[in-house]
């Protein structure tokens, strides 16, 4: 299964501020028969922090050697990003993440950006199959507020990473 890691959870997965769900996600990426990481376009430099994020660089290098990176040419992502922006259908300012999903076929997104989550779940933008969200933010509908990482790996996290159908290509 092919997944995208958004820049706003980079440190939860690859950095010092690793969350329980972030660690669970990284474990899923690195274990035998684990996940495939989609990468390309602006997100490439966001996640690598211009090559300074040593943990990310190590993980990326090893995943690539093991054939577990869906490495999309930056130009293809940029072209699709421009296409999405021209149609003005995104509520978030992360059209490059959605573009990466469209050209790579990745249908699982780890992100805590609520606008991006809505875009990614929108069948008008991401479809066949629809995108699913892995997140450490919970929405408290009563308080109309969000609650950050609860510090646990939930059944939802486990179920999402156990799926094998979240890939379009």
């Amino acid at each position, binding site marked *: 299964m092919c997944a995208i890691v958004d820049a706003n959870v980079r440190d939860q997965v690859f950095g010092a501020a*690793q969350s329980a769900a972030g660690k669970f996600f*990284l474990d899923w990426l690195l274990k035998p028969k684990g996940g495939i990481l989609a990468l390309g376009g602006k997100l490439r430099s966001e996640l690598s922090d211009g090559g300074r994020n040593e943990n990310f660089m190590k993980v990326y290098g*090893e995943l690539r050697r*093991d054939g577990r990176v869906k490495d*999309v040419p930056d130009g293809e992502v940029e072209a699709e990003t421009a296409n999405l922006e021209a149609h003005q259908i995104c509520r978030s300012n992360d059209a490059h993440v959605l573009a990466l999903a469209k050209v790579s076929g990745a249908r699982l997104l780890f992100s805590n950006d609520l606008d991006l989550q809505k875009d990614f779940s929108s069948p008008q933008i991401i479809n066949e199959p629809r995108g699913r969200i892995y997140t450490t933010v919970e929405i408290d509908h009563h308080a109309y507020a969000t609650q950050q990482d609860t510090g646990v790996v939930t059944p939802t996290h486990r179920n999402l990473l156990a799926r094998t159908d979240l890939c379009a290509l």
Partner: protein
Amino acid sequence: MGLVVENVTVKNFRCFRQDQTARLAPLTFLVGENSTGKTSFLALLRVLWDVAFRGVSPDFRRPPYDLGSFEDIVYQRDERSRPADSFEAGFDHLHPLADGGTVNFQAVFKERQGVPFPVVRHFAGKDAWIESDLVEAENFVIRFGIHTEKWERRIFVPDLFVQQAQLFELFNPVMFSRFDSESGSAIPGELFETEKWHPIYDLLRLTNSYGDSYAGAPLRSSPKRTYDPIRPSPDPGGEYIPAYLANVFRQDANEWQWLKGSLEKFGKQSGLFDEILVNSLGNSAGSPFQVRIRKYGSTSKGRTLKGPARNLMDVGYGVSQALPLIIGLLAPEAPRLFLLQQSEVHLHPSAQAALGTLFCSIAGPGRQLVVETHSDYILDRVLLDIRDQKTELKPKDVSILYFEPNDLDVTIHSLRLDDRATIVDPPDSYRRFFMDELRRSVGL
């Protein structure tokens, strides 16, 4: 020029029990743990090359390889089981003469005088085939066929190892009998139209069509301060390299400039050296000479700070380790097949990566490289150069053969690259050790 060797098949050889096929490309890497048969595979390739294309007897002990006697080479499951009585190997060859088609070569090896001997050699092209078959102690049958017709001739060969290689040179159509498949008997003296012979002659020409392969080992030559001129004769350790450089330097100014430029380009990319010099200690061709290298420092106001010229023995192991290989690869009269064993030894990662780039620039249909390596730096660089189109090689031009231990046997996986030069669907064990190390390092 077609690719020389592709689709190598092997059965009952060393740790390879099952009949398996390995895809070779212009640039092929052999990867896997120690003692999984990678060097044996290189040695087998060279023997197949010799037996198929050079008309020489097989020698599994020719340096830099030494696979031992027949019983060391043939497959044996475990200490209780009997060793196999033969092993088989072969390959496909894109043959320019055979209508651009593929010629398949297969050999069966059995024990003769304690070492492997090719009792069967079989070449099959699109329209014809030829075969030598040792049917009794000293009797070969040479057969050939065109479509459904078959001819054969029995030849007495008292000295197997000396004469078997030249068997096909004895070929003369007048001396063959047609084999009647209905009666199962030979009909002597029955000739057929001359034009039918062309595909047969194409195959016969192939049996003695190429020069020696290059087999490089991770050996370091012993550098000296001063060399006496000798006639350079290639050896796996590269002892001939100083004499080769001096010969080119003294005899051909144009070739020296080209070779020096190519070497210095690699030297700069790898960080090993910036300049290579031959210092003749006299005016005659028989004068002693020195080989030196120089590193450059910073450049200021158009002037480059140059370090002292140093003898090879006064610089790190990396230079004297790498020079024979680099010169071997760059030499204008270089062979068509290179078999390289752990060429990264003694080299810093940056030099290993530069070696990857050099491999990309050398490999092609006319010059095939088979590289046994444990270096991620070489492999990473090759795949990135292809992904970023910094080389003319395409993903299909690279093959990664992963030697996977499987109990006491080994399975060869031919890994494929996608259009972004990423390995597609490798076996689970392919990077397991590295993944486990990484998981530990990131605290999982």
